[in-house]
């Protein structure tokens, strides 16, 4: 299975893993940022009194949660961006933008659907008395949302958002299927060049683990600290 010769061969292509790591991290970070903004808009739409908006948001969320990520990714890449000729420059000198960008879009659209439910729950968990106090002081519904409700809601769901980041790091591996040069793409490339698969996969496993395990431990630590702070 694993041979020292296999590791030696794989090691010659270690640069591909470094690139894969950079690509995976950029993909995940952008997805969390865009996904969050998108999720916030979806959550507000879903809670809106304007019926068509809330219907649209509800349908969107249900659709994206009920279909496989791979299908969504292929639709975005092969259908939505099929005719759009994206500029084909390279990020960091190697990431092909015309593949990377549809990847970010598909992941953000998917992650937005999940995050919007988290945000909605966060907003609904805030005591209605907060809204009443704010409105009774003469603040508008908009001011109440942005100054009173959202700051408290976001603080409560920060750990959930951070956990979504961990999930995205793992899920972003699916973008290898459209040729985004993330970690799994590095594995496939090395396999093509060396005919070795076990060793590159072991390295990929180690890289993913080193990314996600400490991150989730750090999140759990802050989560414990925050809840303690609240009970004080």
């Amino acid at each position, binding site marked *: 299975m694993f041979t020292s010769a296999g590791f030696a061969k794989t090691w010659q292509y270690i640069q591909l893993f470094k690139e894969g790591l950079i690509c995976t991290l950029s993909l995940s970070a952008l997805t969390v940022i865009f996904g969050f903004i998108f999720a916030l808009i979806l959550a507000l739409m879903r809670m809106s009194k304007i019926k068509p908006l809330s219907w649209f948001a509800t349908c969107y969320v249900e659709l994206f949660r009920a279909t496989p990520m791979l299908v969504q990714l292929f639709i975005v890449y092969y259908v939505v961006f099929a005719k759009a000729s994206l500029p084909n420059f390279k990020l960091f000198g190697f990431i092909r933008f015309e593949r990377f960008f549809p990847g970010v879009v598909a992941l953000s659209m998917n992650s937005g659907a999940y995050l919007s439910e988290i945000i909605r729950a966060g907003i609904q968990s805030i005591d209605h008395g907060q809204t*009443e106090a704010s*409105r009774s002081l*003469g*603040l508008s519904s908009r001011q109440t949302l942005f100054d009173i409700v959202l700051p408290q809601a976001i603080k409560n769901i920060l750990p959930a958002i951070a956990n979504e980041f961990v999930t995205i790091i793992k899920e972003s591996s699916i973008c290898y299927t459209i040729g985004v040069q993330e970690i799994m793409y590095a594995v496939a490339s090395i396999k093509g060049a060396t005919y070795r698969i076990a060793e590159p996969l072991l390295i990929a496993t180690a890289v993913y683990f080193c990314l996600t395990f400490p991150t989730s431990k750090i999140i759990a630590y802050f989560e414990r600290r925050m809840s303690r702070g609240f009970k*004080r």
Partner: protein
Amino acid sequence: MASNAELIKVTGLCKHFYNGDLKALDGVDYSINKGDVVVVIGPSGSGKSTFLRCLNLLEVPTSGEVVFKGVDITKKYYTDKNGNKVRLNIDEHRRKMGMVFQHFNLFPHMTVLANMTLAPIKVKKMDKETAEKKARKLLERVGLADRADAYPIQLSGGQKQRVAIVRALMMEPEVMLFDEPTSALDPEMVGEVLEVIRELAQSGMTMVIVTHEMGFAKEVGKKIVFMADGKIVETGSPQEIFDNPKSPRLQDFLRKVL
């Protein structure tokens, strides 16, 4: 006819829940004049909170009018002094009515000072310095000058409620609405909050107070309103209500609480 001194006039106020199966308010008529200290009493579930919350439209009435300073705030439009039809902005009217809640409802992510200055800065466009100076003065008045930078979680219940009162006062309201301001407090903290409300009453502030503290109602109230089953059953001076109750419902209620 409406006198100049009339601040709020409520007519035919109804609030139904569950498509009319529950009549929380069932036709309430009442007028509040400037300087009035109205104390609302009655058994639990009689509609006291709903009545109070309809006054600043936190609860939207099913039917009836709430006329505040000549404007029916339950309607979408009103006619101004020059005879123009204007869209009603409820926020403008709410600014003139302060409200104090049973559970304080301070904003936990803000300091005491920030709680107090938020609305003046945001809606009255007061500059931060002026607002903070004003806030510190009010805090001093209620004996909390040293708590300006504390977060609500660091305060006792009585301190929280005093902050909630001065937070409402920051907007210089024309009427203050209190919904059972001492019901969530430990007994030893009731006094300090009632003291603040008492002082406010003496300063001439128009107030509507829902309370279970009968001694306080008798002492501070200039007019007492007794509610039961979503209706005003009896009104009168403290003497009339407490010493000479007429309706059997009120007699029964007083027997139970006194």
